[in-house]
């Protein structure tokens, strides 16, 4: 799988913040994306998940072709749950009625009680909110799942249960995580490679980092 092109320049700014071409991707397992603040991690994730596709449909191209909007799903710093629907209705809207059968079990898997299903999004804490989002995003079965600043509001136990949930439901499918803390990298033991953005030219300077490329299977 190759990322043919990922290019984005915010209107009015000079240099493109993301300018990647022909990057070969290990298309399975969990990978991390690192880089200093402002290096374009979130922008890259938005680009890959079709956030800008209305403005520029050719800003992101995969080979073989993927639809960024349909095949890539991002869970990040933005609220994807509709505030006028309860958790249950939000997941039904995004994943269809079939997702309702396992909803209680899935809530338990990410460390939430089944009663959360009847709450409105604004009644959830940030960590709970993100865990509901990851259930919805994972059940949609995207080819590529992107988790941006995902674990920052969770305790270790929550992080662990979410990670095992992702591994359980995604199998070998690809998941990228923006990771900062050393601790989190340890937890992501199935890492096969990592991307690093350097923040200046926006290019990848380190692919397939040393730690973990051997651990591809789990």
């Amino acid at each position, binding site marked *: 799988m190759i990322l043919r092109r990922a290019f984005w320049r915010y209107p009015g700014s000079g240099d493109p913040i993301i300018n990647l071409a022909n990057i070969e991707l290990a298309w399975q397992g969990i990978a991390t994306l690192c880089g200093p603040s402002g290096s374009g991690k979130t922008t890259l994730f938005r680009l890959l998940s*079709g*956030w800008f596709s209305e403005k520029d449909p050719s800003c992101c191209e995969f080979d073989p072709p993927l639809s960024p*909007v*349909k095949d890539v*799903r991002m869970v990040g710093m*933005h*609220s*994807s*749950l*509709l*505030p*006028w629907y309860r958790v249950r209705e939000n997941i039904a*809207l*995004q994943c269809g009625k079939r997702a309702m059968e396992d909803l209680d079990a899935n809530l338990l898997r990410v460390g939430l009680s089944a009663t959360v299903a009847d709450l*409105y*999004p*604004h009644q*959830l804490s*940030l960590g709970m*909110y993100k865990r509901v989002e990851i259930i919805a995003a994972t059940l*949609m079965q995207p080819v590529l799942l992107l988790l941006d600043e995902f674990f920052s509001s969770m305790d270790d136990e929550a992080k662990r249960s979410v990670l095992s949930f992702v591994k359980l439901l995604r199998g070998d499918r690809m998941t990228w995580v923006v990771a900062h803390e050393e601790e989190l990298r340890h937890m992501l033991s199935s890492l096969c490679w990592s991307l690093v953005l350097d923040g200046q030219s926006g290019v990848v300077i380190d692919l397939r980092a040393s730690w973990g490329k051997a651990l591809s299977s789990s």
Partner: protein
Amino acid sequence: MGKGIIFIVATMAVWYVAAESSFVPPLYLPSPVDVVGAYRPHIWVDLGATLFRTLIGLTLGILLAYVVHLAAIMCRVIDLLDSQFAASRAVPIIAVLPLFVMWFGFGELGRILIVMLSATLYYLAPLHNSYRLLPREWTILREQVPLSVPNYYVRVVVPGTLGTLLGTLRLTVAIAFTMAIASEYIGAQSGLGKVIDSARVTFNVPGIFLAILVALIIGFGFDLLMVTVFARLVHWAGAEGKK
């Protein structure tokens, strides 16, 4: 609430003193006693007629605004709608009122249509503006899930835009009420507008003041009702926060 009552009582007192002292001629400011004396039980029938026209016209008008907006999205002429409606709103609806009376006669139809049309035109542009400002993480659901356009409109656009439309709704209610009264100036059998117009013919200034006072209280009540209903209906507004 206490301050409000003090304010009203103080206003009444100043009004009473100003009118009784003959400092201001009764043509400009009749005494509160005369205004109360102008009360006729029939005013409730007139008020009912005005409320009926306002509520029917308002409801149909806002519904029409949503239907037109959805149709414009489905027919991909939404950008056109923006500019065309800006032009049509520049025509004061009140200017076409006599035309409506000529077309639809002195019955209810023409009056309700004028209230409806003004509600639609006042609601549509802010609705569209709010639609364009919907956050990307909501609009992306249409392609992501995917949802049909009507389904997307009902489940995402209508509730999503409502959160920022309280001010517009209050204005639209006020416009509908105003247009209902204005429509009754021409050949109506009942209504607050008709009461005011009849009183004008006989120089019955206290009668006009009474009708205005009733309209004021009802308009205030309408607004309060709107805010209360809105707070319950759009319970998430303001609470959505940054997650």
